[in-house]
């Protein structure tokens, strides 16, 4: 059950949007399709939603072959980035739309709409027009509208993309909670790795029409399957021939084994986090002569303990444990 995608291909003219996608999404899960723009994630979602037809391959939703089925008959809920609200209808009417189209008895529609408005915390705003709602409220309305028809699959296209940072954060938490209550198989598209890692229980990383990796957020972050995933999923900096996460670099005031001297050219404090740009003193070793500044992330406590200031001379080295291993894998990958 859930969603089964077999060898789906799609091109637009000479542009290959999806190369050969096979993916199995478990029933009841919350899955993120993550990738940069042009990676094919939205095309894949639209194929699931029946808004695009694949050139080849098949799509099964909840055990049913829907490859050639129009959107109307797929029993899906679709949430759009820009809400796609029915602007001339009240919030209540928007949510009721799918049920009314299905000729559900009036009393039942009223009950179900009430239920959903409570679920998305809009029960007091039922008489408003979408234009009288904030962006976050509009997207919650859109979600209620999509859920009203008891879809077998809920598809969300960059659902928080049009919202400002704070509302985005709230809605993310809220979507996670909602999913725990409703448990409908859900797939959402995002280009924001933080969003994917935070909200989803399965992350599908896509790039150039292909799936790079499928895994839990931890697997994706800790064991990236490719150079691309490593680079896309979190920040990366170069330390000589190595690529690693900025927080996997250790800063000391005195030389340690494996460390290199450098100077702090920029120090920025972002809340609890301190970001350094360090220009390494060039040496005869493997680090080479010309190199961009190395980015280092420290906690504020660490930075204060060392009393770091812009212009200070320091020593940096990769931390023991995960960082080094990752870096070595990727060094091989990069030279391939």
């Amino acid at each position, binding site marked *: 059950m859930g969603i089964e995608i077999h060898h789906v291909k799609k091109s637009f003219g000479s542009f290959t949007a999806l190369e050969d996608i096979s993916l199995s999404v478990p029933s009841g899960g919350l899955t993120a399709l993550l990738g940069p723009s042009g990676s094919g994630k939205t095309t894949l979602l639209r194929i699931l*939603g*029946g*808004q695009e037809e694949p050139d080849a391959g098949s799509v099964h939703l909840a055990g049913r072959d829907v490859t050639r089925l*129009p*959107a*109307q*008959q*797929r*029993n*899906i*809920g*679709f949430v*759009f*980035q*820009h809400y*796609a*609200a*029915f*602007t*001339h*209808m*009240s919030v209540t*009417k928007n949510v009721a*739309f*799918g049920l009314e*189209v*299905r000729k559900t008895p009036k009393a039942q529609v009223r009950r179900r709409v009430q239920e959903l408005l409570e679920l998305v915390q809009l029960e007091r705003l039922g*008489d408003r*027009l979408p234009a009288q709602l904030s962006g976050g409220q509009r997207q919650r309305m*859109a979600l209620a*509208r*999509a859920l*009203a*028809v008891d879809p077998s699959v809920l598809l969300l296209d960059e659902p928080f993309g049009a919202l400002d940072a704070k509302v985005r954060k709230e809605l993310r938490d809220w979507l996670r909670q909602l999913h725990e209550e409703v448990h409908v198989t859900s797939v959402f598209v995002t280009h924001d790795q933080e969003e994917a890692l935070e909200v989803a229980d399965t992350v599908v990383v896509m790039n150039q029409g292909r799936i790079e990796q499928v895994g839990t957020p931890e697997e994706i972050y800790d064991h990236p399957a490719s150079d691309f995933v490593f680079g896309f999923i979190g920040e990366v900096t170069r330390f000589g021939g190595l690529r690693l996460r900025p927080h996997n670099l250790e800063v000391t005031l005195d030389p340690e084994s494996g460390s290199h001297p450098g100077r702090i050219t920029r120090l920025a404090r972002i809340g609890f986090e301190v970001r350094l740009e360090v220009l390494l003193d060039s040496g005869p070793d493997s680090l080479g002569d010309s190199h961009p500044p190395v980015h280092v992330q420290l906690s504020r406590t660490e930075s204060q303990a060392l009393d770091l200031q812009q212009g200070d001379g320091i020593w940096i080295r990769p931390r023991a444990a995960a960082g080094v291993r990752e870096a070595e894998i990727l060094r091989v990958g990069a030279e391939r």
Partner: protein
Amino acid sequence: MPTSALNTPAPGTDAAPGRLRSRFRSTPRSRRRRRSTLTRPAGLALGISVLWFSLLVMIPLALLLISSVEDGWSTFWDTLTNVQTANAIRLTLVSALAVTAVNLVMGLLIAWVLVRDRFPGRWLIELMIDIPFALPSLVAGLVLLSLYGPESPLGINVLGTPASVFLALLFVTLPFVVRTVQPVLGELDRDVERAAHSLGASRATTVRRIILPALTPALAAGATLCFARGVGEFGALVILTGNRPNISEGAPMRIQSYIEVDNTAAAATVAVLLLATALAATLLVEILTSKERPR
């Protein structure tokens, strides 16, 4: 009496263009009342606008109203009950209404094709839509006469029949609905239709429940313009209809005839009636469409 005549038309005529404009934008904001936000330059601009509007529209209109009743109400009444005049007015109103109805359908269809479809020669249609706008309406009459006149290659001759009025109005009002609907249709978010589809709505249901309501203000604006133009059209009728009294003579022709015999009061009476009908239509459409939208 002249004073009351002066007072009555002013608010009505003032309101009509404002309402029309507000419908184009279709925001309720323009109706909100603001009192003391006028800065000095804005006050000056408003003053100039009102003066301009008065000189060009309001005062002439008021004088027209006065002249329609200056020979007394009996002349006013006699003019309207004159059989030939009444027939002309009826023909004009019926034709304008029919043309408006046809244009609502055809205009929507043409706008739809222009906005939603990409095909070779689209630019040509786009250009041709405006020809009725661009042509002097006398020329419009000539153009129609060549195809639907006595020498019609199709064998259809409307000259001197009531159908000629309908046809002439159809031609000159063609662009209105197309041009009011087209931009609104173009701005419609396609995702809204996709959302309706995903909720199980068929194409027909989506058009009826989602697209048409969104287009209603634009359709209403187009219909109003269309009707008003239809009621007032003169040039095309002169050429195409043959002006046969009681059969193919339109109301504007009656105005012309009255002026020719120097019966200004009668001419003004017909003019006032046409004006009142057009304004009433505008108001009616406004009331109907604002009711349709929930608060």
